[in-house]
């Protein structure tokens, strides 16, 4: 058997007289302390590198404020509505006492049963009576406060049943008892028109384009075939725009930023043939577009209608001039009252067909003057309003003459703002919740500082829309809701939020294991050995102390 030779044994061997010269483990290189120092030095480097590795290979996932996002559902936006009722010269004191209560009851009913969804309105009603009536439309036409509406009761016959100017509603009450529509219903039609399914049918709802802070309006003068003559080769678009479209855009400027572009096309062919020629009752030949054909009217493959430079949503407005051998062209309508030369493509834009007077081939080409464009652009204006969600004005209310300069009444504008603000708040909350669930689901998705900043910004903007916030006028709520919408969209569509889906965990192990597993084994084994040896030594030292 081989005997193990240790320094202790060496001493014994020396005593025995054996020659052990030339073979000695006494060299300091073999000391235990050296070995411990070596193992320690290896481990120090490993431990120092560990945090660096962690930092280098970790994905930045900053914590999102999930508690605040969870609480979003419990928040409610409240739109403050201040109604001043001016009973005017209703002499009946009895009525002037009971009527306010009836009004309050009517408004309370507004909140409950209704055919559509009502926005959350917080009413603040003040009644004043017996003052000098005056004509609210001529006094103080400007300087109206936001969110504040006034009802004026008048008993003179000169006033129609319901009339409105600015944010005033004049009610002609002869004796105050028999009003064909209750004041409450009319107020509902003015304040919350989207909830009235007669005023705002589902077809109108489906037309409304999704909200976006910026819109691009693309106007196109589209000739079907300019080579056969009788085409419109140009138009005075700038004048027509400034006359008809820009006032509306100015009114809607609180909601959207608009960019306008226009072009003229000479060969915008249709992919189908209109029905015709058909003779109508007067013996005039015309061509017709059926409803099916209207839905495939836009030939997106051939027509380049917009520049496509930015990612803003586009509303297209086409003034279509049919070719000279297929004129005049009308749409099929079943209702007599509807126009038969224009139609809206929901959420996309509108088309107006212009049939110039030159019917035959070879007619000279014309330039459309602003006068020619008056009709089409009025239609474009109403199409634009419909696409952007401007509600219908209730037919029973008469608007006064000066309303025509600004085509959208403040009632409609306020209702639109409320609708959009509510939509934005809801969509932002949805986006934020989706972000949280997405980040939780995909483990490799990085969350950077910019995303966190945008989420925080969106939450702050949403907080500012609640009644608890100090600012609570409609325009401020709208502005905050737009901020919230923009920031939450940016956060959701942030390009850095693409998860590292290319590196599944197995690949990570496959790359790290070949180097670090065989390297770790001797390190760990040595460490364990050293720890055991140290424990042994301590036990031996303790034993020695005990025995001494």
């Amino acid at each position, binding site marked *: *058997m*081989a*005997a*193990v*030779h*240790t320094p202790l044994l060496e001493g014994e061997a020396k005593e025995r007289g054996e020659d052990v010269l030339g*073979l000695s*483990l006494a060299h300091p290189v*073999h000391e235990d302390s050296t*070995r411990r120092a*070596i*193992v320690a030095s*290896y481990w120090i480097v490993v431990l120092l590198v560990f945090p660096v590795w962690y930092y280098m290979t970790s994905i930045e996932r900053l914590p999102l404020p999930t508690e605040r996002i969870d609480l979003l559902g419990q928040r409610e936006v409240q739109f403050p509505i201040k109604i001043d009722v001016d009973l005017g010269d209703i002499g009946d004191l009895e009525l002037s006492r009971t009527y306010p209560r009836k009004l309050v009851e009517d408004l309370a009913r507004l909140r409950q049963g209704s055919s559509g969804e009502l926005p959350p309105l917080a009413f603040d009603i003040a009644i004043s009576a017996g003052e000098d009536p005056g004509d609210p439309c001529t006094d103080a036409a400007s300087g109206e406060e936001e969110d504040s509406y006034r009802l004026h009761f008048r008993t003179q016959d000169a006033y129609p049943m319901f009339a409105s100017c600015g944010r005033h509603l004049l009610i002609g009450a002869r004796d105050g008892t028999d009003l064909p529509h209750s004041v409450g219903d009319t107020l509902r039609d003015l304040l919350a028109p989207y909830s009235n399914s007669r005023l705002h049918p589902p077809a109108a709802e489906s037309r409304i384009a999704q909200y976006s*802070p*910026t819109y691009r309006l693309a106007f196109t003068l589209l000739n079907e*075939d*300019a*080579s056969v*003559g009788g*085409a419109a*080769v*140009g138009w005075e678009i*700038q004048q027509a*725009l400034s006359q008809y479209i820009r006032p509306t855009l100015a009114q809607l400027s609180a909601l959207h*930023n608009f*960019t*306008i*572009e*226009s*072009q*003229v*096309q*000479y*060969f915008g062919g249709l992919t189908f043939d209109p029905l015709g020629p058909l003779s109508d009752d007067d013996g005039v030949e015309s061509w017709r577009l059926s409803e099916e054909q209207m839905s495939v009217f836009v030939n997106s493959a*051939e027509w*380049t209608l*917009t*520049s*496509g*430079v*930015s990612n*803003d949503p586009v509303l297209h407005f086409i003034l279509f001039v049919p070719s000279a051998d297929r004129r005049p062209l009308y749409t099929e309508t079943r209702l007599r009252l509807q126009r038969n030369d224009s139609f809206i493509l929901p959420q996309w834009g509108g088309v107006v067909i212009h049939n110039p007077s030159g019917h035959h081939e*070879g007619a*000279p*080409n*014309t*330039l459309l003057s602003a006068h020619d464009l008056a009709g089409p652009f009025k239609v474009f204006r109403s199409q634009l309003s419909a696409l952007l969600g401007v509600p219908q004005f209730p037919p029973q209310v008469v608007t006064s003459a000066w309303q025509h300069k600004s085509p959208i009444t403040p009632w409609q504008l306020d209702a639109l703002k409320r609708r959009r603000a509510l939509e934005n708040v809801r969509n932002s909350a949805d986006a934020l919740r989706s972000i949280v669930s997405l980040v939780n689901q995909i483990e490799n998705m990085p969350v950077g500082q910019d995303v966190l900043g945008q989420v925080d910004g969106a939450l702050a903007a949403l907080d500012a829309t609640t009644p608890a916030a100090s600012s609570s006028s409609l325009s401020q709520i709208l502005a905050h809701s737009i901020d919230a919408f*923009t920031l939450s969209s*940016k956060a959701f569509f942030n390009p850095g939020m693409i998860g590292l889906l290319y590196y599944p965990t197995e690949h990570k192990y*496959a*790359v790290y294991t*070949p*180097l670090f*597993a*065989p*390297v770790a*084994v*001797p*390190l760990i084994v*040595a460490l364990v050995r050293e720890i055991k040896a140290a424990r042994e030594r301590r036990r031996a030292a303790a034993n020695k102390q005990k025995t001494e």
Partner: protein
Amino acid sequence: MHLPLALLLLLLHTIPALGTPQNEQFEEHLTLRPLPDGKVHAQFRFITTVSDPLKGVPFDLADREEALHTTLLPLSLTQLLRTYYTPELHLSLNAGKWDPLRWGQPGGALRTGAEMWAWVTDSRAPSGEGEGEGEGEGEGGRWQGLTNGLAGLFCASLSSQMEQRTTSPRLAFRPEGDLPSYTPHKLYHASHPSESICTENLTPFLKLLPCKSRAGIAQLLNPHRAFDADWHGMGVHVRWSNSSAGGETEVRMEVGVVFDPVRVSGGKREWSLKSLFDRTITRSCPAASSSVLTVQLPEEMHELLPQPAKMLSSDGVFEAVYDLGSVGEEMDVGMRWLEDRFDYATVRYTPPELIIRRALKGGSTGLSELSVILSNTRAEPRRVLYVETLPWFISLFLHTLQTEVDGVARDDIIQSISYLPPVSPKPTLLEITLLLPASSEVHLTMQAEKGFIRYTEHQPDASRGWDLPAAVVFPLPLNASSSPAKVAIGGGEGEGRIYSSTLLVDLPTPDFSMPYNVIIMSSTLVALFFGSVFNCLTRRFVVLRMPAEKGKGKAS
């Protein structure tokens, strides 16, 4: 008696009045040029000129929010240029190799593949930029946005690997128009040698024209025939000039095709519009203020049908001019020669004035040699600028640059060198000004090294190799002091620059199937070493007494 009147009325009815708005003008022009080797070069030019500052490219950076109303200008292109503040843009997309010996050197963008250069405003926009424009501002951001927009507009992958292909040449490429003077502009140039043109590029190109391909000259552009030709390409050139009040913007869109009637018809070089394009012109474009077909007449006996309305002569070359402004029925032009078959052997070519040949020689290892031969066939010396852009993995060793004139080494040919070494991933830019002696051949050589790039940087078809963009030679005026004269609008295009061919370079590739294998093997070696050293250093030595063995006598 009634006949002339009726004819007159008929004529009146067939001429639609061209009521185009003022300030905008559209002209189209087709030039057919029979070439000495039996081929036919057809060059389409569509030029839209606008002298309304609101419709062109704005120079006032605050103008951008103004609405854009165009009638004849293509809306998408103009809006793109306005968004990225680009007063001058040149884009060309070609396929095939232009043969200067047989086809002449008309100048222009004749580079194989895609080439694009533009002057982009360098300053930042004023405050109030909309969302989504954040990335478009600042150094290089506008160029990136512009190329992305053009790539989307023409369905060409012009924006891929932009960083690896974009350079900013210092001496080459002068603006053809004017640049607005109160804001600095930066020139960006990029080329994609392996990008070729096909129907999906031609279709959006045609949509930018007022009459598209329904009327006028553009009717002839039949993709089946055009892309069957020996050389075909399209180009878009936008420039602005300060001539009239507010400036004038010109958008010039070109399509050039070189047909080979001899190949198609089997031996005869007669051609007609029908035989070349398989189409004829049936309608004239109502938006065009002038629509002209020009046929350059060759020197031999030929017959041209129908008889042209006008004959012009310029520089000794006769041209037949047809006015296409009022096309009643089909319009077809054809040329015939009095011969049965075309005989290639009888053709005499005049050598072009400047020929450039370029090659990359050498095996994969060691150094390769970039060899450029510039031949000056004129009897007077010429001064040229040679521009070379190579991708970042080709390293040039300029200290080995040698020049030989007709076999004799000379030092005095090179006048100046401007060199920008490649910083991965940006390419090299080498601009050399040379004085070529009269009737001589100058041979430039320098050593280049093909780099080794990462596994992830190789192309999907790595064995094919990389295309090296063509080198460009610009003729310069002989006196060194003046810069090359600016070209007036409507004058010559392209400054007579000449392109070499593209080169295909084969880079040594790693084995693409091996990433994990390599990781495992190298890691194993390192781990083995580490483990052995660790064990050696930390294990205890133990002395064992060996037992005495019979026959192996070692006394204990």
